[in-house]
């Protein structure tokens, strides 16, 4: 398989995980997961807490190193000691459960920071794009607000815009609505759905089953570090075969 980004072509999976394993001390978090994500696809990963979903996302952009297996992102082997992590992360956007906006900078500055300092792009151009992104996430007028002055849902939408400003090829969403008030969950989900409809490749870890059913091309159910079952949402939610999946869905739906 192509371990060289130059050999990667868009007809191959944008993310190709094979037998990924990760343990922290004596505890196995990820116990051999293989998932393919094609360009433009939306993948939802569901499962009980502690199933290793968040860790798996962090492995994809090398925030957490994997112990064995392989993750190819556009042909880049993440499990390669010579990996250029910064080059990888420019292509992979990530949005966190706790938003993690930089509290000392305004919303607009949060969005502009990475393009300015990482990509070293022209300020006027970056600012124009950042304003467009603020409109895209429906926060026009909040450009000069500090994160502390925004609601959770608004902060999360700024975080999405901040990630998009790097023009990534794939977006990772780590339980992005789990810390939100119920009434603001929807506005964030709408933003993500619009992104998905625009053709952005998305890997979404979520507890929102209705949302997963609506946007996902493939739903993966993970438990104890393995993929128990996966399939297109229509099939997955109505016709799951594994007992663990049935039990999980009956608890949550």
């Amino acid at each position, binding site marked *: 398989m192509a371990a060289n980004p130059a050999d990667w072509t868009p007809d191959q999976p944008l993310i190709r995980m094979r037998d990924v394993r990760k343990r*922290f001390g004596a*505890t*196995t*978090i990820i116990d051999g997961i293989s998932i393919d994500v094609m360009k433009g696809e939306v993948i939802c990963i569901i499962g*009980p*807490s*502690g*199933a*290793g979903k*968040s*860790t798996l996302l*962090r492995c994809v*952009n090398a*925030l957490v190193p994997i112990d064995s297996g392989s993750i190819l992102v556009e042909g880049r082997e993440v499990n390669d000691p010579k990996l250029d*992590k*910064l*080059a990888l*992360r*420019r292509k*992979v*956007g*990530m949005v*966190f*459960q*706790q938003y*993690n*906006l*930089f*509290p*000392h900078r305004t919303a607009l500055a949060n969005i502009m*920071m*990475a393009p300015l*300092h*990482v990509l070293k792009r022209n300020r006027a151009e970056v600012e124009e794009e950042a304003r467009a992104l603020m409109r895209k996430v429906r926060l026009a007028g909040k450009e000069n607000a500090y994160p*502390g002055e925004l609601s959770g849902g608004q902060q999360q939408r700024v*975080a999405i815009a*901040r*990630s998009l400003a*790097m023009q990534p090829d794939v977006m990772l969403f780590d339980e992005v609505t789990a810390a939100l008030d119920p009434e603001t969950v929807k506005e964030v989900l709408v933003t993500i759905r619009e992104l998905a409809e625009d053709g952005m490749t998305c890997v979404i870890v979520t507890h929102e089953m209705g949302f997963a059913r609506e946007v996902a091309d493939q739903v993966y159910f993970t*438990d*104890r*570090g393995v993929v128990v079952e996966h399939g297109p949402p229509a099939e997955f939610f109505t016709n799951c075969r594994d007992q663990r999946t049935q039990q999980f869905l009956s608890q949550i739906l």
Partner: protein
Amino acid sequence: MSAVGNLPVLKPFRIAALPTHSCSLLSSRHGALLIFGLALAIGVGGAQAGPGTPSILATMVKWTPLLAQGFALNIAMSFLAMAMGTVLGLALGLGLISLLRPVRAFSWLVTQFFRNAPWLVLLFYCILLMPFEVRIGNAIVPLPGWAKATAGLTLPVMANVAELVRGAVQSIPSGQWEAAEALAFTRLQTLTRVILPQCVKRMTPPWMNLYALVVVGTPLASIVGVGEAMTLTGDVLSSEGRPELLVPMYLYLLTWFFIYCYPISRATAALERRLQVP
């Protein structure tokens, strides 16, 4: 749910905020007590004075310009020590959080040594070990006692600032590091653009507190013969040769320090209160 669910690494964790130093704060009650003590000492001293000598108050006023000169040196030394100590301490503090183990170990050793060594010992070392002049190029620059004493005070400031930096950096939630890393920031960019700017706010109150400590530490320089306010007060007392002046004069000097440190102390307290409200 499953046993895997209890992993600390999956939980968002928060580190407690920096400890505050409110215990050492001055209050207006201290000021009232000081003024009362000074008035009492002047009264008692006046009663002890022999006939025909000028009043205690008049003597104090007479020497005030000289004491002010000495006090200006105290302030200058505290400013310089704080400025140099902060710059050096910032570098040392970054050493404390370095990813390189030898750098970290060395910085830790330096920090612990200068933080725990008595200030007076450091002062003596600087006075005795530093030359009285240094040659820079062709010019010979004299190193007066006060400059050496300032260097001696810089060392503990450096070590304390280093600890402040380390503590503040570690008090920033790990999500800030993660977010910056995910945006492809380098470690240096993450530090300078995301982490350290947030540390400034957290570090300001304890840093001001440290400054007040440095100010009241400057009279230590009198022991090594620097002509600052403490030394000059002693000179005044020996030239006047009136034992009843002893207590009022030193209380008078103490009042100077109080008047200078009190606003700093109040501002520190106000800042701490404001920062506690998120």
